[in-house]
């Protein structure tokens, strides 16, 4: 019941925001920031950068790349990155937990955007310092969704994983890895015409990557991550081994895949 109320709240918020101007609204960030980080201080992060379109061609699949120009050996090493979209009904899109196995963090993903918005990457150090980088993207209509298709087929396909490591691999150097998981990533904001309510949220909420059983990266995934979540990232294998991923959906189902690196 609480969940339903929350969702309706999101929609009213969206309706209200119709009145705002067409361009990204900078007034939203203080509200989003306070709800996630309270009054904690936040410094600009010149070492975090984005590659993103100025205008997204499709709000459902907006390509976005993040780079952190430092390693885990750095005194102020970023341990966690929160990816937020100010104007989405659910701003937190993903949280990335980094390790030294990633080298310099570089990751491409695809996100949903409901309207023009600022994208925020908030980096957090081990001792809790916060750093902020922002980019503006113009976009429309990625959250409501146009759900269609056979429910049985969608459920049967959900959780299928593709995991590829660039080959031949150069041991000790940044190695490009692509992870894709088939999943509808239902936001909980899509209308259910039969019940007159909303289609329940159904999404991948976590992907944990390991190399020879040691943690490489954990990602907490939100519904702002596009259908069929996609991460392409660099990691640095020091020796041949096995890269594995375990993904979990919000109903508790687990999906895993692994690939040999040599």
């Amino acid at each position, binding site marked *: 019941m609480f969940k339903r109320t929350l969702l309706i709240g999101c929609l009213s918020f969206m309706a209200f925001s*119709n009145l705002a101007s067409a361009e990204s609204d900078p007034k939203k960030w203080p509200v989003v920031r306070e709800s996630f980080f309270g009054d904690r201080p936040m410094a600009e992060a010149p070492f975090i950068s984005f590659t993103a379109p100025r205008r997204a061609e499709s709000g459902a699949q907006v390509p976005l790349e993040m780079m952190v120009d430092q390693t885990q050996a750095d005194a102020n090493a970023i341990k966690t990155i929160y990816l937020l979209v100010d104007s989405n009904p659910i701003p937190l899109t993903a949280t990335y937990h980094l390790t030294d196995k990633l080298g310099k963090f570089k990751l491409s993903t695809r996100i949903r955007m409901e309207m023009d918005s600022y994208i925020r990457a908030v980096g957090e150090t081990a001792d809790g310092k916060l750093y902020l980088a922002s980019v503006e993207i113009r976009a429309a209509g990625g959250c409501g969704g146009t759900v269609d298709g056979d429910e049985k087929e969608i459920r049967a396909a959900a959780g299928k994983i593709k995991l590829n490591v660039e080959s031949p691999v150069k041991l000790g150097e940044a190695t490009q890895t692509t992870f894709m998981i088939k999943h509808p990533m239902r936001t909980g904001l899509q209308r259910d015409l039969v019940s007159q309510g909303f289609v329940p949220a159904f999404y991948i909420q976590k992907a944990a990557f390991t190399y020879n059983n040691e943690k490489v990266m954990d990602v907490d995934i939100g519904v702002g991550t596009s259908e069929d979540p996609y991460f392409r990232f660099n990691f640095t294998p020091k020796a041949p081994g096995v890269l594995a991923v375990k993904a979990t959906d919000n109903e508790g189902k687990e999906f895993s895949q692994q690939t040999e690196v040599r």
Partner: protein
Amino acid sequence: MSLRILLGFVFTLTCCLVKAAPLQMEALDHDIYVHHGVHEDLSENYHGDICNISFIVGSKGIAVIDTGGSLKVGQQLHEAIRKVSSLPILYVINTHVHPDHIFGNAAFLQDKPIFVGHEKLPDAMERRRENYLRINQQWLGDAFAGSEIVKPSALVKGTLKLELGDRTLLLTSYPTAHTNTDLTVFDNKSSTLWTGDLLFVERTPSIDGDIKGWLSVINELKVHEAENAIPGHSSILKDSNWKQQLNNEERYLWTLLNDIRASIKKGEVMEKAMSTAAASERSYWQLFDIVNRRNVNNIYPSLEWE
């Protein structure tokens, strides 16, 4: 072209008056009237009048095929119909869910016609309602005033016949292609097929459904008996060889599909393919840079799972 601009200017002036100025229609044989929208993208420079809008006058009444992108355009269409005929408006047909084809529906509520669409149209309209209302308001501003979603009550699953007295319209629904709500209308009397956006002429075909589904629908349409076709968008109906236009569209879609498949096989990223896929088609289509990039963005992620 200059005449078009002049007409647009006249519309702009008259929109301030209480009564809507009638939409400019091209009168074809067999009591068919078509309005040609202009080729604008659905973005900031969109003015709500980009698609072909038609009406057919039968001995008992009138059928409207697509109503334009706003209540205002719908009202102008209504005026244009009343200049030609006072017969009842029996049917208002939407060829698919896109906002440039449906938002004039409300102008016909007073006539109490039967609104007709694909069996999936009411559902698709509902899912897109909030986004469409917000984004079209943003694009069109005051010119979107009073526009609302009006859903069909008569749904086409397979085929449906509509009687206009001396002529019968045959409506056919299709599996997901351009959208998941595509419908064609065939008028036997004039041997004319309204293709909706299953056939794009001049304007770059936009994919909001399933490219492979669309290619198979094109194969079906290739053997259709119709002598003439009225596409969803075109500047003027001068080319009666609609099968050739269908071939052009098929060529674009296959080129796009093959280029994307090759890009995925090479391990490229979607962002790169957005600039390179189907580049050989660039000179043949209007709005190519915008629409083709969007097509790649829309279909690349699902093709990665082939």
